[in-house]
């Protein structure tokens, strides 16, 4: 187990900056998830930790040791790839034993380690099979097994569940988490799937355009996002954003959407000079048809239902608004419905920069 420190790391591919000064520290034994859209630099950051890419500037420390100049083999880390990267010409047993053989571990020790990992992952019966004879989920397990036999300082996962179907993904998510609980090893997990990030992480590192946007526990990011990117990326269905005007009044900050009063927020919040803001509110924080709200109403556009829950698509002064509820909704198109919400759940963002206004 080891901590990982990343200090002011930049990475350029030719003239294209991919990481623009990243600082991050991952505690020993922590399960950190790097999440963000394609091209945000999360995989590059992981590859920098692995030693598969060199940083253009900045330092990477593993277990207190600067590893910038160390090749991957000397960093004592294990990595699970999106494509699993199992050696096609070796059977399951040899795939798992490869790293130990390279270290000239005695055969008895190898057999013990491989046997232990195979038992933990339910792979005993498959030991003699080649990767092409395995299903996606089994290959995924072998890739995990290959990582755990080494007992490395840290595990790196590069979108390991992307190639699995939804049901298998759910199961593997649970198994990886359980494995982490048993082994307690420092893990860095890259994904573009915010559900994976929310369900697996001790801490989420949300990235966009080569910059870390926010680091925190899943619920911190969910409830208290630092900017519109994080607010919009984390959570499904995504947070509602409405173009609004803010004006400081006697009783607080008056928010209007499309010229109609929307809500009043506490005086303590800072405001941009032009008063142009975005307000963000999560779909499940809005109630339809309840009284005692702020007296806002909207027109129903469409209702989607999954059986367990419904999502109502509404039109509020020309802007789309989603409401998520576990109730079954029955509305006609164009019907106007009153909305209620708690102003404590409204996030205020700068209309130009998208930064959270606090």
């Amino acid at each position, binding site marked *: 187990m080891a901590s990982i420190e990343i200090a002011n790391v930049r990475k350029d591919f030719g003239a294209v900056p991919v990481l623009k000064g990243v600082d991050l520290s991952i505690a020993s034994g922590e399960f950190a998830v790097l999440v963000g859209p394609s091209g945000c630099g999360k995989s590059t950051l992981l590859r920098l930790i*692995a*030693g*598969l890419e060199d940083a253009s500037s900045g330092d990477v420390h593993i277990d207190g040791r600067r590893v910038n100049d160390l*090749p*991957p*083999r000397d*960093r004592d*880390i*294990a*990595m699970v*790839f*999106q*494509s699993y*990267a*199992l*050696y*096609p*010409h070796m059977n399951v047993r040899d795939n798992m034993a*490869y*790293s130990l053989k*390279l*270290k000239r571990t005695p055969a008895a020790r190898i057999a013990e380690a491989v046997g232990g990992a195979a038992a933990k992952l339910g792979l005993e019966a498959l030991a003699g099979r080649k990767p*092409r004879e395995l299903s996606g989920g089994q290959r995924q397990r072998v890739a995990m097994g*290959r990582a755990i036999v*080494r007992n490395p300082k840290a595990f790196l996962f590069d979108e390991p569940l992307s190639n699995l179907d939804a049901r298998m993904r759910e199961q593997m998510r649970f198994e990886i988490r359980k494995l982490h609980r048993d082994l307690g090893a420092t893990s860095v997990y890259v994904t573009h799937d915010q559900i994976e990030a929310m369900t697996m992480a001790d801490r989420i590192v949300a990235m966009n355009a080569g910059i870390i946007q926010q680091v925190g526990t899943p619920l911190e990011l969910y409830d208290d996002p630092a900017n519109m990117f994080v607010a919009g990326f984390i959570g499904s269905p995504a947070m509602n954003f409405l173009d609004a005007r803010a004006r400081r009044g006697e009783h607080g900050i008056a928010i209007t959407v499309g010229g109609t009063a929307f809500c009043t927020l506490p005086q303590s919040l800072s405001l941009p000079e032009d008063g142009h803001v975005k307000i963000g509110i999560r779909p499940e924080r809005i109630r339809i048809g309840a009284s005692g709200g702020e007296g806002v109403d909207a027109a129903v556009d469409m209702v989607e239902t999954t059986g367990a829950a419904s999502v109502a698509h509404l039109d509020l002064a020309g802007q789309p608004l989603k409401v998520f509820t576990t109730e079954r909704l029955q509305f006609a198109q164009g019907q106007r419905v009153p909305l209620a919400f708690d102003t404590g759940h409204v996030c205020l963002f700068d209309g130009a920069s998208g930064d959270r206004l606090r």
Partner: protein
Amino acid sequence: MRGSLRSRTIKWTLHYAVLLIYVVAALFPLYWLVKVSITPNDILYKQGTDLLPSRFSLEHYATVVGKSDFLLFFRNSIIVSGVTAIASTLLATASGYAFSRFVFRGKFWIVGLMLVTQMFPLVIVITPIFSIFGVLGLTNSLTGLIIIYTAFNIPFATFLMQSFFDGIPKELEEAAMIDGATRFKALVQIVAPLTLPGIVATVGFCFTGAWGEILFALLLNSSASTSTFPVGLLLYSTRATVEFGPMMAAGVLALLPVCVFFFLIQRYLVQGLTAGAVKG
């Protein structure tokens, strides 16, 4: 049903008829080679156009093996082709790997230059090569031939090997390097076994290219001691006569190593030349 059965029969008959025409056209010269090589001299011209001679004899083979320098030519060819195949494949493997995996300054120009060498006929460079090799003492030597064959094989062999390496996911090497291997060890233990069909195809390509080459062999090496067998075959054709029998017998003997070689590697070759065609 009956209609469809008939149309299917017709289709398959046509299919096999076309295949048969192709196979006959491709193999007939080979058959003729063997037929002439086993026809005794006294009936060679009398029964020249018969499909089968009335008697068989191995006298031409005896002439070739016992009364000519054929075994020497044969040995020279084996040395030249074998060393060329191994050297070209080793160099092409290294350069193909570099082209496939590394980004480096000047890569574009090197690839372009290698393509350019494939564009013009060899005949136009033969005079400068002859004069350069003369100065260097590389005419009338097997080494000279090996150098020139290797040099001319490398561009195509490199592109061939590069395409095989391109078909091997980079993650496999990366996984091996994280598992504790050096890049070289990852290449030898993980990538090379997977590229084996490609390596074998490249060896085969270079070997046959050198085995049948005659232009440089004829012009650079004039002494019998350094001639390869294609040059040796020409000795059976003089201004006055053409000794068809021994020439064909020598041709059959020259085919044997290539046949054996391809028989041994054909399993890999089929894999190699179709690798990457299907994902998975």
